[in-house]
């Protein structure tokens, strides 16, 4: 069981940081949502699922559980992702992944597309977002399919 956690973090360190040096795409927040895709294109839900399941990419299952039965070790720190697509629009999901702290300043969920307001970031990750714009879109596309 600790293997999962340790592995997550070892992989996290070893993983090539996909967002390397990419300039942050600008986005507009309207209400509690980012309406437009960060990349201008729709994401790929199948890739999104893989990112969510991947402990070194999305890290989502550290905290959340979700309809990914092959991943045995899931978190209980956050609500289940099941049904996220019926609770939220794509735009709302996008803002929650990009920078959930804009909605809840105390949230423990990391901002996946923000590089400011962080302290003592390990060198390999400094100045980089957790996910790239493409990855954010893929994750949003998958979450949007989760209707209950």
């Amino acid at each position, binding site marked *: 069981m600790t293997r999962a956690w340790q592995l997550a973090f070892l992989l996290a360190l070893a993983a090539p940081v996909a967002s390397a040096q990419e300039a942050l795409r600008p986005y507009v927040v309207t209400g509690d949502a980012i309406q437009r895709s960060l990349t201008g294109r729709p994401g790929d839900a199948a890739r999104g699922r893989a990112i969510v399941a991947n402990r070194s990419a999305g890290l989502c299952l*550290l905290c959340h559980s979700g309809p990914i039965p092959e991943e045995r*070790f899931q978190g209980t720190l956050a609500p289940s992702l099941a049904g996220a697509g019926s609770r939220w629009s794509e735009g709302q999901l996008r803002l929650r992944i990009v920078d959930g702290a804009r909605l809840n300043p105390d949230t423990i969920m*990391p901002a996946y597309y923000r590089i400011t307001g962080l302290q003592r970031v390990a060198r390999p990750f400094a100045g980089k977002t957790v996910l790239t714009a493409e990855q954010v879109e893929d994750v949003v596309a998958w979450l949007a399919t989760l209707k209950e």
Partner: protein
Amino acid sequence: MKAARAALGLVSLFAATWAVAQGTLETRRSGYQDMGAALRQMQDDDTANPGMLFVQLGAAAWDKPAGASGKSCADCHGAASGMKGVAARYPAIPPGADKPVDLGGRINLCRTGRQQAEPWPAEHRDLLALEALVALQSRGEPIAPPADPRLAPFRERGAEIYRRRQGQLNLSCAICHDDNAGKQLAGVVIPQAHPTGYPIYRLEWQALGSLQRRLRNCLVGVRADAWPLDAMEYVELETYLMDRARGMKIESPAVRP
């Protein structure tokens, strides 16, 4: 029967209320209590606890002369059993110093000052073995940080680090170990982070390791820049954690997953 049961219910209710009123209702848990039965048994059985092999190495090192002085620990301190209670009160500020050292730091002070030998580097097997030997003497003793007021600023800095969000994942120790302890992080129960068992034999490491090493694992986990193993920040965190665990029992050398 019914009356008896009701009375019993009342008594336990009173007991609980009384305990709360006295502030004595213990909600703190050692990481030991969050482990499965097999691991608890491994820790409890000295013939199965791998940490005890290191205690044996420590016992040999205790008696072995070292450095230009040609003296052993035993030459100054006698039997290791004289070290009872010592591990329960570190970090402490050694005589003539103005900063706390942890138990490993204190052992290294004897090594350089009294034995006139080279200090051991962090995580050196002999250093960990001696720490395990010394800590074993306090097994079952309550954690009892010294009343030294000079420790306060170090403890405060430790508390501040504990509450500060850091790393790319922007999490603090408190978020996991205070607010979410007992919940599961990817299937692993988050313990309350009490330093009751160090040095620990961690199955993940297949080795004995220090509290610093454990803390580094957590820092790396949140993708924070981990301080080098000999950094003061770890002593500050440990000073805070030992205060937070005041009164809990030492269980070194503990086993952890």
